[in-house]
């Protein structure tokens, strides 16, 4: 049977278990696009390729499985680059399939012709161009293996327009042998596990920090078992948020600084020693124990690590929990709970504020009180993270994706589209500043076309607060009717709860534009006396 290159791509995606592809149409990818639809893959066509890549990463963050974006040649790929780079910095598995100018047309001045491979190489784990249609299934399969094994990350596969239109006899196409299992990394040595437990047993204030690597390894259950058996307090960061629920008696959410700076021995699992984690430099610690599948991560930034294990988080945590004994941590845990209550009280005080313009913490707390336990809240980026980080609990994994350390802004609507596709019928909220809203607000049209009732809450402080560059009062809520949705302006405290309730109940995308105090400050929850 004769098959086009595009059909071979789509069939290979289906075999890889792909149900959704985030894409923007273009002539260079038509055969793949059409074949994917014929096979029942949902092609979520967005309004800008960056959103396609952000949504593909959002799919991975929401489901733990690699997300796929399909973009056309030239500007299609360059537009997607920011989303790919974001996934690269965060270590999220993403497969980008791009069209390209013809294989015959290199250096002829052909439209949308660009050296795409060289552009994507610095921000991908693996990048390839396919030269022969009969090898397409093999390369698609490789792309998924590369994206998901070891430290996950984005991969790139390029197929020229003449390749996806070419026709081959299916009999000549050999599909790859499926790998029986795709282990992400090895198990640690027994002696190292014993040493880790010994160091923890010698601690007065031990703590565990779980990062995205725990989510990608599917090690949530092993993590919970370990902290329960050893009775060690836990904080979760980035994609690990919710992997153990924030209301678990041993989980202290993401307020990592309060705990890390008081701990004496720290077990860090699958967390990059990066900007979002003080670069891992905590000289007050007696010991840091580190488990990471990425060998380059152990002791990064010249951090003194007492014991580093290059290992799969799932295997390591399982071994640790099998051998763990309960530690004498009652006093330490009790002290942390007291601190948590003090911080919660400080937050509640601000949350009761009737000030006009509204305090952003009040908006976030009011919103949080209206959300169901399985809601997804995407806190976009930048200054507003001060309030969202302090507000939205994570009860399940994949529910609170936020900014990566690339520092993207505006990407949150891509994450929201993916979460709404992955979990239809659940609440999906995009909380965003007015500056970031402008980047990809047009994706609310995508949400409308696909029947995704995403609630957008704009914390509108009238400008770019990073540099205090004013944008002025803008009626972003008026955009909603253009997408068959409802828009509500909130200026006063008494308007807030009814507006949020109405937006959350809507069956179409809704925008709640809340004018918040540009001079609002972060809640005063820190304790200098607890640090050190």
């Amino acid at each position, binding site marked *: 049977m004769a098959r086009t290159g595009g059909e071979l791509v789509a069939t290979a995606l289906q075999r890889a278990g792909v149900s959704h592809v985030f894409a923007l149409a273009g002539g260079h990818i038509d055969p793949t696009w059409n074949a994917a639809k014929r096979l029942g893959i949902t092609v979520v066509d967005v309004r800008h390729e960056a959103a396609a890549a952000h949504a593909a990463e959002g799919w991975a963050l929401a489901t733990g499985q690699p997300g796929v974006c399909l973009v056309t040649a030239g500007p299609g790929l360059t537009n997607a680059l920011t989303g790919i780079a974001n996934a690269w910095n965060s270590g999220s598995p993403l497969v980008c399939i791009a069209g390209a100018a013809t294989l015959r047309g290199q250096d002829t001045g052909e439209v949308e012709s660009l050296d795409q491979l060289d552009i994507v190489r610095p921000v991908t784990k693996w990048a390839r161009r396919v030269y022969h249609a009969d090898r397409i299934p093999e390369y698609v399969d490789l792309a998924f293996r590369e994206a998901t094994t070891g430290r996950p990350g984005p991969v790139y596969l390029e197929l020229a327009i003449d390749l996806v239109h070419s026709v081959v006899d299916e009999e000549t196409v050999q599909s790859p042998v499926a790998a029986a299992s795709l282990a992400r990394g090895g198990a640690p040595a027994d002696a190292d596990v014993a040493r880790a437990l010994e160091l923890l047993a010698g601690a007065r204030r031990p703590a565990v920090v779980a990062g995205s690597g725990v989510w990608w390894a599917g090690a949530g259950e092993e993590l919970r078992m370990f902290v329960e058996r050893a009775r060690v307090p836990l904080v979760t960061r980035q994609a690990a948020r919710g992997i153990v629920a924030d209301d678990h008696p041993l989980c202290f959410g*993401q*307020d*990592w*600084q*309060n705990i*890390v*700076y008081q701990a004496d021995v720290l077990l860090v699992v699958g967390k990059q020693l990066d*900007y*979002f*984690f*003080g*670069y891992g*430099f*905590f*000289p*007050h610690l007696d010991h840091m124990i580190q488990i990471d599948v990425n060998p380059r991560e152990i002791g990064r*930034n*010249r951090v003194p690590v007492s014991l580093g294990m290059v290992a799969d988080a799932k295997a390591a945590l399982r071994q640790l929990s099998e051998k763990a004994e309960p530690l004498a941590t009652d006093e330490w845990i009790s002290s942390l709970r007291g601190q948590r209550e003090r*911080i919660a009280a400080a937050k509640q005080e601000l949350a009761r504020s009737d000030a006009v313009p509204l305090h952003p913490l009040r908006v976030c707390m009011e919103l949080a009180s209206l959300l169901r336990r399985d809601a997804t809240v995407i806190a976009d980026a*930048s*200054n507003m*993270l*001060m309030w969202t*980080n*302090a507000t939205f609990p994570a009860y399940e994994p994949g529910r609170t994706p936020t900014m990566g350390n690339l520092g993207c802004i505006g990407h949150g609507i891509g994450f929201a589209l993916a979460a709404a596709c992955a979990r239809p019928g659940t609440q999906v909220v995009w909380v965003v500043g007015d500056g970031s809203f402008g980047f990809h607000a047009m994706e609310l049209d995508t949400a409308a076309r696909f029947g995704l009732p995403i609630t957008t809450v704009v914390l509108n402080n009238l400008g770019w*607060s*990073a*540099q*205090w560059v004013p944008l002025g009062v803008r009626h972003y809520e008026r955009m909603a009717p253009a997408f068959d949705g409802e828009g509500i302006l909130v200026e006063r405290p008494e308007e807030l709860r009814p507006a949020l309730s109405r937006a959350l109940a809507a069956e179409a995308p809704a925008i709640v534009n809340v004018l918040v105090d540009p*001079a609002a*400050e*972060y*809640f*005063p*929850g*820190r304790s*200098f*006396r607890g*640090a*050190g």
Partner: protein
Amino acid sequence: MNRELLTQARDGLPPRLNAGILMGDGGFCVLGWMLLTAGFHPITLYSNTLGVVHPELGGPAVDVVARVYGLDRDAVIGLGELNDATPVGERVEAVRRQITELLDAEPSR
């Protein structure tokens, strides 16, 4: 006490100090400002910041400020607490007065 550095931090205080975060979009708290004045730039953002990143000199913010400025730890804690407890409009002046008191309490040699 490093009088020269402390004087420099006091005299260069920005027009606005924030509360609750060492350094974030929009400004610094007094400890963040003192760290910046002393040359510490890469500080973790967007949370309840208490720590300083530096390969050799980093650690809890209170300890780093105390060490670099040659101040008692309690004096640094006092500055941080004053910062967070004072309304924004009065904060810079309150902090400036407190630093002046610290300088006056230890005459220069």
